[in-house]
C-alpha cells in the first residue's frame, strides 16, 4: 500500500505541477457602477453643467437664507425711501454701488441739496464734494439723504418720546420750526421742510434769498431768550441757538398736537430702533427700493423662494401624474393609447393664457396660488406623459420584457419594475428643465398682469419686473436686479439640464448642440 500521508515532509517541498499565475483568479475588487452613479460621473465631467449646478445652488441658498438675514420684510415699505438706489457699505467711498447718483444742476437746485447737509450734518451732496463749471454744478446726490427734512404732525406722547430719544442718544431728530409766514409761497413747495432759509417767488418758481455776503438768511421761528414758549421743547438745540438773544422754537402747536420739523434719516433710525424696535437700524438697501418703498433684496429673495417651492411642487405633481398616464398609454398601446393621446393632445394645444383666465374667472375667491397651480398642472403633466410614453414604446418589445412575462410577471410588475426605471433618467432631466420654464411662465404671466401674486407677505419676480418697468428710464435698478436674477437662473438651469441630459443619455450627446 502506497503511503500518501507525508506528515514529515515540510510544506516548502511541495510545488505546483503546472507553473501558472494564479493572480487572475482573484475576486474583483472594484465596485460595480450603477446607472445613477455612472450618470453622476459623466455629469461631473461636463464643466458647463457643473458651473450651472453651482450657480443654481447659490441661487437657491440666496432664496433660502436672505429672507432670514435682511432686516426688512416683504411687508415693509417706507413712503420717503422710495426709488432709493442700491448701496453697499463696502463701496461707500467709491462711485459705484454707493447709493448716489451723478447730477449736473444749476446753482439754485444745487444749493437746495447742499444746504440740506449744512443744517443737519447729513450731506445729500456726497462728502460735500462737487465740481463747478460755469453755472452748472456736478455732484453725486445721495439718495439716502436727499429727502432731508419733512414736516411731521406728532401727538404729544410721540413728541415727548422723540425728545426722550434725543436726550438718551444725543442724536438730533427735531430741527427748528419754520413759521408759516416764512415758508415758500408757491403751494407745491410750501410743505417742503428743507427751505429753512428765506425764499421768494420768481417766475412761478421758488428762489433762495442771499444776503450781501452770498449767505442764506435763516427763517427759523424764534422768541427772545427767557420768554415762555409753547413749543414744550427741552432737548438738544442746534448750534447758534440762543445767540443774539433769540431762542428758536422747535414745534408749532396745532389743534391735534405738534407740528415738528424732523430730519427723515434720523427719524427713520429713531422710529425703527427706538419706537418699533423691529430690528431695522440704519436705512441701507443693498439692491435699492422699489417704487412702493419696498426693499428689493428682500422681495427678490422671497419671490425666488416662493418660485422655487412652487415650481418644485408643481413639477412633483406633474411627474407623478404624467408618469402614470404615460406608462399606461405606452404599455397598453392600441385603442387605449389612441384615446388617451387625443385627450392629452387637446390639453396640450390650449394656450396656457386661456386656461389661467378661465380658471380665474370660474374660481373667483380662490387664492391665485391655487389657480396658478391648477393651470400649470393642467398643461404641465403632458410633457412628462409623452416622455414616459416614448420610453415605454422603446422598451416594451425588448426580449427581457418578454422573458419577464414568460416567467409570469404581472403587467403592473413589468411596468414599474422592468420598463419604468428606463424612463427615469429622461424624466429627471425633463423635471430639471420644467422648473425654470415654470418660473419663466410665472414671470411672464405676472408681468402681463394676468395673475397677481403680490399680496401681503408674498411677491414674485414677475411682479417686481412688472411694477418696475415704468421706471426703466428713471430708476433702472428696480428691474435690473430681478432681470439679472432671472437671466442667471434660466442660464444655469439650461446648462445644468444639458449636462443632465447628456449624463443620462450618453447616446444623445451633442445631438442638439
Amino acid at each position: 500500500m502506497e503511503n500518501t500521508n507525508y506528515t514529515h515532509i515540510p510544506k516548502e517541498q511541495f510545488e505546483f505541477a503546472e507553473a501558472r499565475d494564479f493572480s487572475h483568479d482573484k475576486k474583483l475588487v472594484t465596485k460595480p457602477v450603477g446607472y445613477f452613479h455612472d450618470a453622476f460621473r459623466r455629469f461631473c465631467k461636463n464643466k458647463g453643467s457643473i458651473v450651472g449646478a453651482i450657480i443654481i445652488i447659490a441661487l437657491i441658498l440666496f432664496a433660502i437664507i436672505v429672507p432670514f438675514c435682511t432686516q426688512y420684510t416683504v411687508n415693509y415699505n417706507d413712503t420717503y425711501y422710495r426709488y432709493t438706489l442700491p448701496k453697499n457699505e463696502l463701496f461707500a467711498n467709491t462711485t459705484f454701488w454707493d447709493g448716489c447718483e451723478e447730477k449736473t444742476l444749476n446753482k439754485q437746485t444745487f444749493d437746495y441739496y447742499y444746504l440740506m447737509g449744512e443744517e443737519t450734518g447729513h450731506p445729500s451732496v456726497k462728502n460735500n464734494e462737487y465740481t463747478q463749471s460755469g453755472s452748472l454744478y456736478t455732484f453725486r446726490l445721495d439718495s439716502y439723504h436727499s429727502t432731508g427734512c419733512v414736516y411731521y404732525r406728532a401727538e404729544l406722547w410721540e413728541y415727548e418720546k422723540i425728545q426722550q430719544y434725543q436726550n438718551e442718544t444725543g442724536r438730533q431728530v427735531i430741527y427748528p420750526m419754520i413759521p408759516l409766514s416764512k415758508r415758500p409761497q408757491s403751494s407745491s413747495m410750501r410743505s417742503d421742510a428743507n427751505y429753512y432759509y428765506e425764499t421768494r417767488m420768481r417766475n412761478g418758481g421758488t428762489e433762495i434769498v442771499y444776503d450781501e455776503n452770498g449767505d442764506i438768511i435763516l427763517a427759523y421761528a424764534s422768541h427772545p431768550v427767557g420768554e415762555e414758549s409753547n413749543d414744550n421743547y427741552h432737548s438738544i438745540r442746534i448750534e447758534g441757538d440762543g445767540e443774539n438773544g433769540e431762542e428758536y422754537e422747535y414745534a408749532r402747536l396745532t389743534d391735534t398736537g405738534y407740528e415738528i420739523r424732523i430730519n427723515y434719516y434720523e427719524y427713520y433710525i429713531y422710529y425703527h430702533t427706538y419706537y418699533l424696535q423691529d430690528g431695522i437700524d440704519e436705512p441701507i438697501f443693498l439692491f435699492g427700493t422699489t417704487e412702493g418703498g419696498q426693499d428689493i433684496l428682500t422681495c427678490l429673495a422671497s419671490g425666488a423662494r416662493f418660485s422655487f417651492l412652487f415650481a418644485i411642487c408643481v413639477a412633483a405633481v406633474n411627474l407623478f401624474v404624467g408618469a402614470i398616464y404615460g406608462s399606461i398609454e405606452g404599455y397598453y398601446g392600441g385603442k387605449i393609447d389612441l384615446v388617451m393621446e387625443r385627450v392629452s393632445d387637446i390639453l396640450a394645444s390650449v394656450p396656457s393664457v386661456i386656461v389661467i383666465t378661465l380658471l380665474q374667472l370660474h374660481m373667483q375667491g380662490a387664492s391665485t396660488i391655487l389657480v396658478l397651480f391648477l393651470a400649470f398642472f393642467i398643461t404641465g403633466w403632458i410633457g412628462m406623459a409623452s416622455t414616459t410614453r416614448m420610453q415605454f414604446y422603446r422598451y416594451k418589445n425588448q426580449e427581457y420584457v418578454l422573458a419577464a412575462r414568460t416567467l409570469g410577471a404581472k403587467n403592473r410588475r413589468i411596468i414599474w419594475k422592468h420598463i419604468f426605471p428606463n424612463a427615469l433618467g429622461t424624466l429627471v432631466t425633463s423635471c430639471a428643465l420644467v422648473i425654470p420654464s415654470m418660473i419663466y411662465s410665472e414671470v411672464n404671466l405676472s408681468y402681463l398682469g394676468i395673475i397677481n401674486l403680490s399680496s401681503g407677505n408674498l411677491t414674485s419676480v414677475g411682479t417686481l419686473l412688472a411694477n418696475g418697468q415704468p421706471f426703466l428710464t428713471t430708476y433702472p435698478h428696480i428691474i435690473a436686479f430681478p432681470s439679472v436674477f432671472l437671466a442667471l437662473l434660466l442660464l444655469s438651469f439650461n446648462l445644468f439640464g444639458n449636462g443632465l441630459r447628456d449624463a443620462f443619455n450618453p447616446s444623445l450627446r451633442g445631438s442638439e448642440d
Partner: protein
Amino acid sequence: MYMFKYILKRLGLMLMTFCIIMLICFVLIKLLPIPINAGLGVDRELIEANLRARGYYDPIMVQLWNYVKRIVTEGDFGIGVNMPGYINQPVWDAFVTRLPPTVLINVYSTLIGVPIGLGLGIFAALKKNKWQDHVISTGVMILIAVPSIVYAFLIQYIFCFKLQWFPLMMATGTDYFTGEMFLSMLPAVLSMCLGSIAGYARYTRAELTEVLTSEFMLLARTKGLTRGQATLRHALRNAMVPIFPMILSEFVAVLSGSMIIENIFAIPGVGMMYLTSIQVLDYDFFLLLSGFYTLVGLLAGIVVDISYGFIDPRIRMGAR
C-alpha cells in the same frame, strides 16, 4: 396619394381638436354672467338691449347654435362690450385692424432672423471646434437661455433710452410702411428675433455638422468639387430638410406675436388686445382671440410634419 390622405387626416384631426377646445371655452365663458362696466358716456341700456337682441341671455346650446350660425353666414363674431374704443362694435373688424402691426413685426423679425441665424450656424459648422465655433455656440447658448423679457428691457434701456437710436414706444397711427414707423418697430423686432436667431443658428450647426461628415460629401469632394461647392450644393440642401420646416413653424408660431414684446414696446397688436380683453372681461373678444391663438398654435404643429413631405422627396408621409 399617400401624401394627400395624410394631409387630410392631419387637418381633420386638427380641426377636431380645435372644435373641442373652442367648445369647452365657449361653454365655460357662457356659464359666467356678462359684466358690463359702462363708463362715462356709454349707454348701459343700449349695450344690454343689444346683447339681449343677440340672444346672449338664452340657454347655452341656443347661444352656441346662434354663434356658429352668425360666424358662418355673416362672419359676425359678436360685439365689444367693455373693450375701450370698441364698445358696441363688431369684434372681427377690431381684430382685423389690430392684425397688421403684429404680423409686420413678425415678418420683419423672420426676415432679419433667418439669414443671420442660418449664416451663423453655417459658419459655426464649417469652423467646428475652432474658436469661432466656441464663440458662436456660447453666444447662442446665452441667447437661448436668457428670456426675451430680459433682453427686451436691455434693448429698450440701451438703444432707446441711453443711445436714443430708436423711440421708446412704437409710433402711433396706421401708416405702417413709413421709415419712421419702421424705426420705431425695430427695437421690438430686434428683441423678438434675437431668440430665433439663436435657435436657427443652433439647429443649423447641429444639422450641418452631421451632414458634413456623411459619405456623399466625401464623394462630392472626390469627384472634384471644391469645399465651398460641395457645402453649398450638397451639404446645405440636405441640412435644409429639417431646418426649413422649423423656420416655417416658427413663423407661424410667432404670428400670434409675443404678448410680452407687444406689452413692453406698446405695440397696438393682437396680443395687447387679448390682454385688454382679459383685463376688462370682454368675452366676445376673448373667444375670438383665444380661437386665433389656438389655431395658430395647432397650425404651427402640423405645418412641420406636412412640409417634410414636400421638401424631401425621399420622405413619404403616411406611407406604410
